[in-house]
């Protein structure tokens, strides 16, 4: 248990001891090395890590200890010994014996160390360099031949291991086992030949492998994409937030000459502790992709996109949006400030509530749930730590919110927290969580949820965004929560969804949780915005918006960073009918059909706030200095001015201040439960289920091949019975098809519910929406 955690618990017993002549009181169970930290005394260390179990592997932290007047005969490892009352500790600062012992250990560590700092990525920020200077001898007495190994070997496509440099501290192996639950690396051999190795059968395909690179105290584990890129003094480091999921990791972005070279997990004990996932760490190259849009583009009479000046593009966009009935598709990746800009723009400049951030399968039930149970509420990671049971509904923690997974895994490992999952099969992540599985076909979640019992008011129900794909499931979850008193939390996949909800970028809510249907709330907002009227009818969901575009009643669309395939497989023919204004970072499917395109800033180039699933604001400043790109809200403000209906949000900070000044409305929409319907699947067909994997074909992962190399291979999962019926063996190709198209993938025979077939939703060779046109429902499965 970390000191922070111990300190939170106020009932804990305090123990007083003396270190280097100073008295200090610390909670019982604290390690000597950490008690010394509290006094500002730094004992050198390598293997010790506050979030990992102590092992005492490196012996660098030796100190002299005396308990009850009796001295330990030899110096002791301060990272493994808990404090005791009246203990007297003498570190290297006051004990010649401890100092000599530390110097001896350092000399031993350096015997086999190559000292190739000049070509080592850790050089300049290396604990071994630093502590060899502070706690080592001046000269080596070693004259023999050093142990050598083949220089770096890849333990995965993104992590390289230089065994010569490894000091066998076991931080990496402990992390993999204790924190990530992926024990793919281990310490092999013994003595001088001891080395970190991978299990031969299983590749090191952990979603969290980057953390081992960050905590390795030497340059033994390095990231392939940062290899030889820079020295610490070249980098400008900026605290930032992760744009990849709703976990809300604190991050640090390191930039050299305007280019992001690496991102590291930040240190936030209440959210990501000191970890992040590999996507957050390594997926940032999309910012520097060749297809970045740098100037406004407009479509000329010949139908070709051409570069245009800002005034020309603004005038054209304003004209198109003003003359037609317009709607707004925001997408789930924008910051709170930008979402607020879209929200206000829709209401004030376009005078419509047809705005939706949910570019995915949606339902009226979901938006009713979001407006009644999610917006304006707060729940946090501590609630997960303290829960007596967790229920996962339409939510694969490891794939869809990896830091939530790490939190759950921590509690599972520590106190066998009970986890129940409603899913078609036990995924790898859920197996690690030892989750009790309620095997359920896609579409019949509602009846499965209604059978869950034994929840208490200390239980937490985690609802993923995919639960909205199953009619009545959210209602069943709400009923379950109401009857048991359990807490409800909604965990979307994308980083911007919660912020967009709070900002009212949804058809039934205005900013600050004001229901559109509540006339008092509307008047309140009208006064705050200084406008004369706000549209009073709840607007259309994203799929309905596209339907109206198809019917020709909505004739203009404002689109902000949306992959339209997420909403409809036929987006192209539909959206071509409308006048499309798009705010984008890079050329995309929308650029192909847009009439006006404005370039916007990527996350590292702007400041903003993401709201994570807890409803915690994650504010960040621009990491790349002097970027010319503008945040969406700035462009929307210019566009509104051009339309003569100003939204007056010229900067990100003005949008943030205005949003904060609105406050949260006190009154919520009421929830109207919807009853579930069970899907009817013909007996010769299968029921498709799918979700996105953490590492897949998502556009924010473009350009990072090393990362893509650790994505899990695309497979279609079927049950043993179905495999027998189809006469296929594990690994043979099967074809899944609908009237629209097909997907052919190698099959994996697993304990999946018999009626179902599972495929990854957006991976290589498996683009479900594009190929099949559906995300769940009836498909035929044949041997290919």
């Amino acid at each position, binding site marked *: 248990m970390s000191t922070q955690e111990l300190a939170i618990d106020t009932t804990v017993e305090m123990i007083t001891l003396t270190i280097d002549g100073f008295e200090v009181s610390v909670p019982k169970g604290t390690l000597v090395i950490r008690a010394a930290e509290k006094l500002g005394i730094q004992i050198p260390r390598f293997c010790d890590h506050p979030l990992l179990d102590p092992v005492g592997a490196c012996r660098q932290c030796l100190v002299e200890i005396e308990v009850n007047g009796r001295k330990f005969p030899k110096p002791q490892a301060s990272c493994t010994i808990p404090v005791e009352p009246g203990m007297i500790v003498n570190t290297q600062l006051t004990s010649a014996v401890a100092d000599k012992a530390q110097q001896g250990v350092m000399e031993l560590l350096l015997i086999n160390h190559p000292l190739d700092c000049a070509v080592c990525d850790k050089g300049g920020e290396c604990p071994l360099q630093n502590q060899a200077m502070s706690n080592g001898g001046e000269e080596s007495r070693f004259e023999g031949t050093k142990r050598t190994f083949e220089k770096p070997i890849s333990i995965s496509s993104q992590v390289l291991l230089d065994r010569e440099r490894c000091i066998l501290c076991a931080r990496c192996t402990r992390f993999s086992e204790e924190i990530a639950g992926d024990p793919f690396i281990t310490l092999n051999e013994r003595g001088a030949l001891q080395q970190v190795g991978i299990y031969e059968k299983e590749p090191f395909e952990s979603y969290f492998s980057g953390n081992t690179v960050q905590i390795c105290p030497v340059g033994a584990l390095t990231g392939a994409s940062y*290899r030889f890129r820079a020295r610490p003094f*070249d980098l400008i480091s900026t605290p930032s937030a992760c744009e990849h999921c709703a976990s809300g990791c604190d991050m640090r972005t390191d930039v050299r000459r305007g280019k992001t070279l690496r991102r590291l997990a930040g240190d936030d004990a209440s959210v990501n502790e000191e970890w992040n996932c590999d996507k957050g760490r390594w997926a940032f190259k999309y910012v520097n992709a060749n297809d970045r849009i740098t100037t406004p583009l407009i479509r000329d009479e010949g139908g070709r996109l051409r570069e245009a000046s800002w005034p020309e593009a603004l005038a054209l966009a304003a004209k198109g949006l003003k003359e037609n009935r317009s709607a707004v598709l925001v997408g789930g990746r924008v910051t709170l400030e930008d979402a607020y800009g879209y929200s206000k723009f829709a209401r004030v400049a376009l005078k419509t509530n047809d705005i939706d951030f949910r570019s995915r399968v949606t339902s009226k039930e979901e938006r009713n749930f979001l407006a009644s149970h999610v917006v304006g509420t707060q729940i946090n990671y501590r609630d997960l730590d303290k829960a007596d049971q967790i229920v996962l509904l339409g939510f694969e923690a490891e794939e869809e919110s990896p830091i939530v997974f790490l939190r759950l895994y921590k509690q599972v490992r520590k106190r066998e927290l009970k986890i129940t999952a409603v899913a078609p099969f036990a995924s790898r992540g859920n197996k690690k969580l030892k989750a009790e599985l309620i095997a359920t076909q896609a579409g019949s979640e509602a009846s499965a949820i209604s059978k869950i019992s034994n929840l208490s008011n200390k239980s937490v129900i985690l609802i993923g965004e995919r639960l909205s794909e199953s009619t009545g499931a959210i209602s069943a979850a709400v009923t379950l929560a109401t009857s048991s008193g359990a807490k409800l939390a909604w965990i979307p996949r994308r980083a911007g969804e919660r912020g967009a909800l709070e900002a009212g970028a949804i058809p039934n809510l205005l900013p600050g949780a004001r229901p559109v249907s509540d006339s008092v709330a509307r008047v309140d907002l009208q006064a705050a915005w200084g406008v004369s009227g706000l549209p009073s009818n709840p607007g259309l969901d994203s799929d309905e918006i596209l339907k109206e575009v198809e019917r020709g009643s909505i004739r203009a669309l404002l689109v902000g960073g949306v992959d339209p395939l997420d909403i409809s497989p036929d987006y192209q023919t539909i959206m071509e009918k409308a006048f499309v204004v798009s705010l984008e970072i890079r050329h995309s499917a929308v650029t192909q059909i847009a009439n006006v395109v404005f370039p916007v800033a990527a996350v590292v180039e702007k400041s903003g706030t993401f709201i994570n699933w807890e409803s915690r604001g994650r504010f960040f400043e621009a990491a790349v200095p002097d970027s010319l790109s503008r945040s969406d809200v700035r462009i929307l403000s210019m566009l509104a001015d051009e339309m003569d209906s100003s939204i007056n949000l010229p900067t990100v900070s003005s949008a943030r201040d205005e949003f904060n000044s609105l406050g949260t409305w006190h009154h919520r929409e009421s929830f109207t439960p919807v009853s579930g319907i069970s899907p009817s699947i013909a007996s010769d067909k299968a029921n498709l289920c799918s979700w996105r994997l953490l590492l897949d074909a998502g556009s924010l992962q473009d350009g990072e091949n090393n990362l893509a190399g650790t994505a899990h291979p695309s497979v279609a999962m079927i049950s043993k019975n179905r495999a027998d019926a189809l006469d296929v063996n594990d690994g043979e190709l099967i074809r899944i098809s609908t009237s629209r198209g097909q997907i052919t993938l190698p099959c994996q025979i697993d304990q999946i519910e018999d009626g179902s077939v599972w495929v990854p939703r957006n991976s290589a060779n498996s683009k479900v929406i594009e190929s099949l046109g559906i995300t769940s429902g009836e498909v035929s499965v044949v041997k290919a």
Partner: protein
Amino acid sequence: MSNFHLEPRPSGAIQKAAEQSLPVTGTEPAGFFTQLKGFWVTFSTMFKKPNTIEYPEVKPEVAPGFHGRHQLNRYEDGLEKCIGCELCAWACPADAIYVEGENNSEGNQISPGERYAKVYQINYLRCIFCGLCIEACPTRALTMTNEYEIADDTREKLIWEKGDLLAPLRAGMLMPPHPMYPESDHHNYYRNEIRESHPSQDTTGGGQSR
């Protein structure tokens, strides 16, 4: 000249200091002999050997340890000594050096071992020729030559690239990229055991010193 005006301080301290520091003691012109002394210096110089050097026709020799422009050296087989470690850039007090490292890969071995400098620039608008970079370099890749004619007419031209700084190929050297000497690794290079290139290192089939 004397139109700057000092605000009188209450203590008159500045005034006092100014008066005390004035060396002029009298106002009369110097006497005849005193003047003659001055002219004598001028006159006698007419018979001395002039110090003027007819630069640029005549180029003076500089002392052996002179800090001239830099050079990036090679091993005897032509591989570059620089490993792109950036220690020179780190040491430089004028922030004149810019280095980007890169991975040596099979088919693209530029220097021995894992790492080479993909980009190496010295900005001679900034360099103060202190030589600290030379001391920092762990491989003796960077040294200074006696060459001092660096002046140029644009800022861009004064940023020297790796190609400008690299030592020319001497006899026995091969133009990288080429593999390391057979049966050797970077340690042999660092111990200076590679004395010339080996025919098998020439992967182009051409002769030496292209």
